């Protein structure tokens, strides 16, 4: 009886101490899935939109002939997993490239742009001008130095038809 309790306590503590490792592995696996899904979606929407939709960051293009315009805005919150944050903290002692952040931030920005294009297509826009992308750290955690920080990407643009 006491043996069983000991085993349970041992197993729970083993899982808890290895939690960063679990979370790191789960995060890598889950985010790889997200990125491959995003790649597919980008191909899909690219094949539909690229021919007829022009996308630019310029606001100096000729806007004559436009009969309809609308403000498009998309925001997206992403964050790495707690295990990845822990290992990145270790890595940042030595400096160098933080691969996990690379993946997550790249995913977030591309996803935001993709949704912007989808939103434009839904409203029947034929081109998107003056795209701006902003990045900000959004932390809704109640304590000041919490690890639950996430990064918000905001993409906004004018869609015209």
């Amino acid at each position: 009886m006491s043996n069983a309790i000991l085993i349970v306590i041992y197993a729970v503590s083993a899982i808890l101490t290895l939690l960063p490792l679990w979370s790191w592995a789960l995060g890598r696996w889950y985010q790889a899935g997200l990125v491959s899904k995003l790649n597919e979606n980008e191909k899909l929407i690219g094949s539909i939109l690229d021919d007829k939709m022009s996308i630019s960051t310029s606001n100096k293009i000729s806007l004559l002939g436009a009969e309809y315009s609308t403000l498009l805005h998309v925001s997206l919150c992403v964050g790495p997993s707690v295990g990845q944050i822990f290992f990145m903290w270790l890595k940042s002692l030595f400096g160098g490239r933080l691969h996990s952040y690379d993946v997550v931030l790249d995913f977030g920005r591309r996803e935001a742009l993709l949704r912007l294009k989808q939103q434009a297509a839904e409203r029947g826009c034929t081109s998107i001008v003056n795209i701006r992308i902003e990045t900000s750290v959004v932390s809704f955690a109640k304590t000041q130095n919490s690890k639950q920080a996430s990064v918000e990407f905001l993409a906004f643009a004018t869609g015209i038809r």
Partner: protein
Amino acid sequence: MQGQTISLMMSNVESIPGKNIVNSLGLVTGSTVRAKNIGKDIFAGFKNLVGGELKVYTELLNESRNEAIQRMMIDAHARGANGIVNVRFATSNVAAGASELFCYGTAVIVE
């Protein structure tokens, strides 16, 4: 004004494409400060085990940003404008657990 939705023409370029600006009525702003509730907090904590997109935060921010835009529109509507040009957004972390979403633009009358 509460509960009533106003729809104005908005753009983030210097004019409203296809329209002529007749009169400029100055700066209009809208802002909102939001904190999340504890249920979403716990859910986001679980989601943080795998990372990726945090949908509860995304929804919360979208909802709040729409409210900020709505306030900006009310401001512009009160001045008699029918369009807002050069709209900009800003997000800042004002306190632990709260974010301010702010948007501003120039109210104009177009024809």
